[in-house]
Every structure is written in structure tokens, then in C-alpha cells.
């Protein structure tokens, strides 16, 4: 944090993938594309519908909840090329209600075991690092929905 205590500016890891909220009361969303012709929904955004090849696609905010389709833990001590996060890490695919699949990191869960398939998970935004201008770079992850 800067010495004056002011909040540092937050920027998305990729503005075409993750939309950060303009106001604290709003929620962050992943961005996808929905085909006007056939209704298929994609993540990340596409220029052309990959099902029917229509180029009439709308940018859509995707559901913030989905289910774990697959999950594994990367445990090797050797850091993958280009990877900037901690080891080990949990990742996999989340299936959203719209039908789109999201490749994502998981958080707020044990690294001992991968998450079970079908676990309900929700989107959250975490600080990933810092860019050259000193902004906080924010990324998306999914975590198991806490039962209350």
C-alpha cells in the first residue's frame, strides 16, 4: 500500500476476459460471447461463433457460479515456463450454466486433493501481481461455495 493509505488502482489481468466492477457495490464478471444466431455461449470472447460460424455475437457477462468439471493439482517443484504464481496450485475447468467452460485456478480449498467433480464454485477476484505502473493486477479464480 502507498504511504498515504490511498487505494492503489486495480487493473484486470485482461480486460477482454475479466471485467472489474466500476463501483465497490458491483460484482466482477467474466466476459464471454453469445451467438445471436444459435445461442451458443463461449469463454473467452470469440469473433466468430465456433458452432455455426455466424459473426453476430454479443459480449455477455457470464454467470458467477458453476460446477467443477475437472480439477488437478500442479505439484512439481519446477516452475512452468511463464508461470508467475506460487507452487503447488489447484486448477481445472468450471462448467457454467450457459454451457461455457472456463479454465481457471481454484482457491480457498485444500491442496491435498483436487476438488471433486460437480462441486459448486463461485467466481472471486484476487490480486495477481503488479504492473509496470504500480497498479494491482487482478485475476479471477473460483472457490467452493460456502454452505451457510
Amino acid at each position, binding site marked *: 500500500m502507498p504511504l498515504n493509505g490511498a487505494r492503489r488502482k486495480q487493473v484486470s489481468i485482461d480486460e477482454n476476459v475479466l471485467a472489474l466492477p466500476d463501483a465497490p457495490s458491483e460484482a466482477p464478471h467474466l466476459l464471454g460471447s453469445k451467438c445471436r444466431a444459435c445461442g451458443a455461449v463461449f469463454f473467452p470472447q470469440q469473433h466468430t461463433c465456433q458452432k455455426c460460424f455466424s459473426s453476430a455475437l454479443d459480449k455477455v457477462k457470464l454467470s458467477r457460479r458453476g460446477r467443477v468439471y475437472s480439477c488437478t493439482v500442479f505439484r512439481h517443484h519446477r516452475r512452468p*515456463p511463464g508461470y508467475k504464481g506460487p507452487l503447488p496450485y489447484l486448477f481445472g475447468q468450471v462448467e457454467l450454466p450457459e454451457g461455457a467452460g472456463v*479454465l481457471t485456478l481454484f482457491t480457498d480449498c485444500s491442496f491435498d486433493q483436487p476438488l471433486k467433480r460437480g462441486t459448486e464454485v463461485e467466481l472471486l477476484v484476487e490480486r495477481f501481481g503488479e504492473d509496470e505502473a504500480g497498479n494491482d493486477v487482478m485475476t479471477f479464480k473460483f472457490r467452493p461455495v460456502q454452505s451457510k
Partner: protein
Amino acid sequence: MRDAVIIGVGMHKFGRYPDKGYADLAEVAIRNALNDAGVPWKDVQALYAGSALAGPTSANNICGRMGLSGIPVYNIEAYCASGGVALRLAAEAVATGLLDMAVAVGCEKQERGFIPVLNQPQWATVQGLEVMPCTGPALEAQVYMETYGVTREQLAKVSVKDRKNAALTPYSHYSSGDLTVEEVLNAPMICDPLTMYMMGPPSDGAAAAVVCSRRQARKYSSKTPVVIAAAVHGSDKFSPLEDVYHELRHRVSYQAYEKAGCGPEDLNFAQLHNPVASMEFICSENVGLCGPGEGARIFDEGRTLLSGDIPVCTDGGFLGRGNCPGASTLAYVAESVWQLRGEAGPRQIKDPKLGLICHGGYGHHAVGIILKK
């Protein structure tokens, strides 16, 4: 259309060669293939050179090693399917009568460790979501094992079998076949469920094939020509999560069967894409050796061993012979030619007549090649 046949194959042994470049490796493979075929370089009318990582004009550098003869030179990149695409293009040119004599070569020179993935968006790479060759296959394995009740012990046995095949193969990365199931299970865990020994080692190497018409084959060589009955290449389509990868491998292999006028039941061997152990089961299902979820069963029954009725990965594939992206499909082609000619030495299977090679290229490409004698 006329038959395109293979009259010579050659390899540079897979392994780690810090003092060699990709062109050094490719040159050895091409010279071995030309010697096998009895064809002088000056008679080659085109060079199709595949590599994932060698870069722009690398095919010209390879051509320069053999002699700048002015022929058309094609630099092909389709990741692990690069060499297979090279063969397909050479076969097509010969079959259509465009050329009478062509060489297809695949080569790779790479660093130890994970294979660079260059085509992914930055947000995925920096978060470790695309690591080759483990993240996608590990996720696929997790789903597969849960769906069909396949165990880690069964995966470990695939690695053991492929090391044994590789130990009988003079050009493979691993020369020892005494790996045990316990050693595979206790090896460092890379990405659940895959331990280090359930993944093929990154290798340097090269493989080449000389492709020509039957008439040319008779002119140069008395060896049995191996017919390229089909050489199909496809790229990815949009698929639902449960079909990603499966659809493409299934599609190219069945297109190849149709072209060759045969089915999976007619095969005497299958050389399958096995960068990780689970993919050997999954790919055997994709190409129709068995039904969905039955890959582990036909393995446990011994049917995919060298002594079985449908031997799979006779040279050990990626898990034993090594993971050398640009060269791997043509390494399978070379192995298949030796098997069909009866020249495979201690790993020779009994009188094969027809074999399939099904090979992916980072999920974006796949080739289905059927060879027969």
C-alpha cells in the same frame, strides 16, 4: 489417384544432445532414410520438413545440409503432428502425380523440462493453466479415471509396458526396460494423477521417410514398398467439454479407415499418441480398438502387448521412445515400416499387414495414417 509408397525410413536416435542442433538431427534421419531407399538426394523433388519449435525457414537449413538443389521446400508446424502433416503432404503430392519422389522429415531440439506453449493468451500462461505436456492431459485423466474407475496402478503399468518396448528399440530415449510399477507410482508427482514416469521424456531427435510412386519404388529398391493407404489431417472443431480432444482423434482415424477401406478390427497394430500414460487408453478408444472406457481392460488382458492381437506403441511411443514433438509421428511411421517389413528385430510382431498411426498436435491438430504392405 495412384498409390504413394514409402521405400525408405531413417531416424536419429531420440535423447538429449546438447551439442547438436535440429538440422544436425534431421540430416542424420534423412541420410539414413535415403540409404534405406537407395535414393540419391539429387533425385528428391521436394522436401517437407516438420518441427514445432525450429522456426522460420528451418526446412531450408535442413535442405542445405543435404545440398541446395533448388527443390520446393516446405516448413511445416503442427506441434506434435508436424511430421505427420509433412508425410500427408508428401503422400498427396505423389498420389496426385505432382511429384514422383519426396522426403518427409520431422525433427526437434528442445530444452529439458516442460515444453514451451507459445500460442496461449498471456493470462493463461502466467497463471500456469497451459503447461505442456501435463495440464490438459492431467485434467482429461482425472475425468476419465473417475468416469470409468481406472486406477493409477493401471496407468503405471502402461509406462512399464512402454519402457519394455523402448528397451527393444535401438533409437529410443530410454534403453532400460526394468522400470517397476512401484517406481512409476513413487516418482515425483507432476500433476495429479500423473507422476514423472507417466509422462514421456522431452527428447531431441529426428525421423524421415522417402515417399514415391510404385514405379519409382521398383526402380530404386527391392524392398517391400509400404503403401500409404490413408494420410488424413484435421484440425479442431468446437466441442462440448466432454468431447474436447476425443472428437478430433476419432474423426481423423475414422476418415482414415474410410479412405483405406478398412476398420479398426482389421488392424495388426496401432501407434497411438501417448505423451502421458492415460492417453494410451483414451486414444485406443478414440480410434475404435475398443469401446469407451474399455482401454484399460484391453490393456489388462494383454491385447496391446507386442504378443497381443493388437499391439499398441510397439516402439514405446512417447513414454519410452521419447517425446520429440516434430519428429514423433514420423518416428511411428519408421517403426511401422520396419514392423511391416519384418525388420523390427526383438520387438517384431507376428506378420503384420496393416497398421494405424493416430497422433495429435496440442489439441489443435491430429493425423490418421494407415500403412499396409
